[in-house]
């Protein structure tokens, strides 16, 4: 079974954008979520992140993230209500609890927990959209010139995690198929077998990386970017006579250097910058009016409404424009 968060190639602006542009766009939403506590703005960011996922065709990732995020949010609300006794509106008096002492559940503590939980859920949805829509190979390619060893580690892990998951599923199946008189599989035996198997797998994957020439990394060559169907090509000659020989010299193209950019990059960079600017301006204009204690106060100023509306609209950015 594939994880709903696994990257799935699709035709869409967000998938075709460079990792930097996607991070700028989704990161701006997460930044607003962490800058603001106002539930209206947080809800708007959540709607925007979900809209972005749905617009990009990652509905299953959004649904899974919402399930996980809202469960986490509920947990945060409960814990916050039990451990925080601030607030004037007491809803429940639960008496003395071991370790916690006197527990009074207040509406303010519930609201504060809900704001924190909503923020966590929003971040999870945004990350789920990133995970399902941004090609990890392109991220690693972008990272490789900056941090080769880290990129190598990330490559190994990104490949080994699904392989180990498949190994674990197979081992569990084999465990279920063992005869009743055979020693039961047991968690310790499974873990030991997985560990030794993973070491073998890691050696095999590392060997493959070596055979693919990973040790020959030339950072300057790795900046070309990935080729997408909507990529625009610009061409310029490299004049350096010291360029290392290329195995594709017979093709006669080795001296040409191309840059590939997505036509959607600018859209996401601009939107990310606009959202951040609006968030900062809104903060200055008091759009983040929210106080949990001693009584709940939710600001609903024009700036709050305007920022929320802008953020929701931004969620439609990954929609493909009709020609």
């Amino acid at each position, binding site marked *: 079974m594939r994880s709903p968060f696994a*990257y799935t190639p699709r035709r869409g602006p967000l998938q075709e954008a460079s990792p930097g542009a996607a991070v700028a766009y989704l990161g701006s939403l997460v930044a607003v979520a962490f800058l603001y506590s106002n539930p209206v703005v947080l809800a708007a960011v959540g709607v925007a992140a979900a809209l972005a996922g749905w617009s990009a065709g990652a509905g299953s990732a959004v649904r899974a993230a919402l399930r996980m995020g809202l469960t986490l949010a509920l947990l945060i609300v409960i814990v916050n209500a039990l451990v925080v006794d601030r607030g004037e509106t007491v809803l429940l008096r639960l008496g003395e609890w071991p370790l916690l002492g006197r527990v009074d559940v207040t509406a303010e503590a519930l609201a504060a927990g809900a704001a924190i939980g909503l923020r966590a859920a929003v971040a999870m949805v945004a990350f789920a959209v990133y995970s399902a829509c941004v090609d990890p190979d392109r991220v690693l390619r972008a990272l490789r010139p900056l941090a080769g060893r880290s990129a190598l580690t990330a490559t190994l892990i990104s490949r080994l995690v699904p392989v180990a998951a*498949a190994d674990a599923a197979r081992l569990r199946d084999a465990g279920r198929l063992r005869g009743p008189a055979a020693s039961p599989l047991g968690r310790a035996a499974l873990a030991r077998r997985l560990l030794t198997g993973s070491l073998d797998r890691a050696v095999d994957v590392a060997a493959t990386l070596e055979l693919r020439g990973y040790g020959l990394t030339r950072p300057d060559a790795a900046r070309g970017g990935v080729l997408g169907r909507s990529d625009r090509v610009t061409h310029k000659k490299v004049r350096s006579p010291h360029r290392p020989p290329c195995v594709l010299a017979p093709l006669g193209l080795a001296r040409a250097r191309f840059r590939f950019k997505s036509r959607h990059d600018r859209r996401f960079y601009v939107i990310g910058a606009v959202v951040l600017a609006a968030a900062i301006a809104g903060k200055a204009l008091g759009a983040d009016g929210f106080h949990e204690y001693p009584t709940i106060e939710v600001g609903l100023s024009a700036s709050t409404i305007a920022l929320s509306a802008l953020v929701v609209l931004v969620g439609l950015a990954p929609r493909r424009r009709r020609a």
Partner: protein
Amino acid sequence: MPELDVRIRAAPALEVRSLSYSYPTAAERSRHSPPHGAVDVGCALRDVSLTLAPGEFALLAGRSACGKTTLLRAACGLVPHFHGGEIEGSVLVAGQDAISGGPGEMAAAVGYVAQDPETQVVSTTVAAEIELPLEMRGASAASRARAFEEVALALAIPHLLDRTVDTLSGGELQRVALAAALVTRPQLVLLDEPTSQLDPVAGDELIWLLRRLNEEWGVTILLAEHRLERCLAAADRVIAMDSGAIAFDGPPRDFLAWAQQADIALETPAARLFSLAGLNPLPVGVRDARAQLGRVAARRGAPPGSGVSFSPQPQSRTAAESPGEKPSKRGTPPPGRQDPPAAAIRDLWVELGEADTRRDVLKGVELSIERGERVALMGRNGAGKSTLLRTIAGLVDPARGKTETAGEIALLTQNPSDYLVRERVREELPGDEGLAALRVVGLEHVLEADPRDLSGGERQRLALAIALAGRMEGDELPGLVALDEPTRGMDRSRKADLVELIESLAARGAGVIVATHDVEFSAAFAQRVVLLGDGVVIADGEATEILSGGWYFATEVARILDLPGVITPEQGAGRLDPPEAT
């Protein structure tokens, strides 16, 4: 002109001189050995010398654990760089020293495709996987684009480029691994049993694809393979290994003559057919065999186009009565025919996949397997064979329909090592019931052994014993024993051992069903063949009928003779006149 000059005067694609290699300590050797026991760690390389000229297509033959994989790994620099150990001699690939260079340096000159495609991909998407080697070598984006496009077209995989590697079938993954190995246009491509996980259609396609690359691109190919009948006709040369040394090196026809004397397990079914019929020279493939038989028929005065039925079959003579056929194998009803079936499958539908990609993998399958019956379950990759076995064993819930089994079912999945999790055989199978299961598979003498030290065949038997343990009443076997693709990476002698085991299980009353791509193996063990196509049973009948009535799911002998009911060399030889009559 200078480039042409360089190509014409190119160094040998591979030059191995007096190469001897031994793995490090036994424990380390075990840890470093490739998956599925492809290398017997005790058998390395002994004084190996060979030269492959540019543009040659060489087949590397030999029994399991004779050193084929080690030689391939030495040629791409993985031995000794990844495995350690002691090495003597030299390995030059296109003039570059593989021993001092290591796999990274050799990667531009040599491409390597291993048996298990799972660990040969390192990227998330197919496009990135193919592009990676070019990127690593500093190729510009434009040259990457062109090489990428060309290799995708050559391997007929443009439709896969936008997919993630975890959504590919084994055959597709193998093609992607081959594309990644070829994209840098290496002079030498090494392949280690690339067809072992492929169905006959995909396997044949891959071999002929290699031949085309060899002919049109001039790529030198060194291919290690057990199913020689599949690739002998494509090869220019055969190198046979035995215990780490080269035992034979020459053209395919000479190899067959050598194998006839030196190691009968390396004979192809076509060669065995001719050998039993006393015909010479031995054929290297179906086309060659048919041509030779046609010439023989013409010499006898048979009318043109009359085929190869020189000896019309008497009406009363059945396949079971053919010379060389074991009397117990066919023609006798399996024991327990009157009992309820070992497994009865009624209108079975199974749905698998993600929410948005769910599809019916099995579509209304109806099947009944009797006790004592030996059934081969065949079909192309993704036809639903494994899913059917897993559903019978209760690992998958059907969407509709039901499966009924008379008693327990023991299923051995594709990788026997998944069953081996303890450090002693005794710990895997404690008590009397464990011992009884070990006796069934003939392993009661290895109680104190570490399962990882057993040979590939023994590991498979031990895994089967683990699946059987506690499912037997006394010495009576479970109603159904199911094996999923058990012959991966096996040579013919180990397959013969497996046939014996299957026959002994059936003789003791178990229904045996084996999912396999190997038509020759099916012909050797099965009474009945069930052919699945896209989740539907498209053929179900006697093995002699199913395996002689098609192109891909037909044995080599059936394709040569094209006679109904004739699928094994023994049956075929009985239909050919003795040589003195020719």
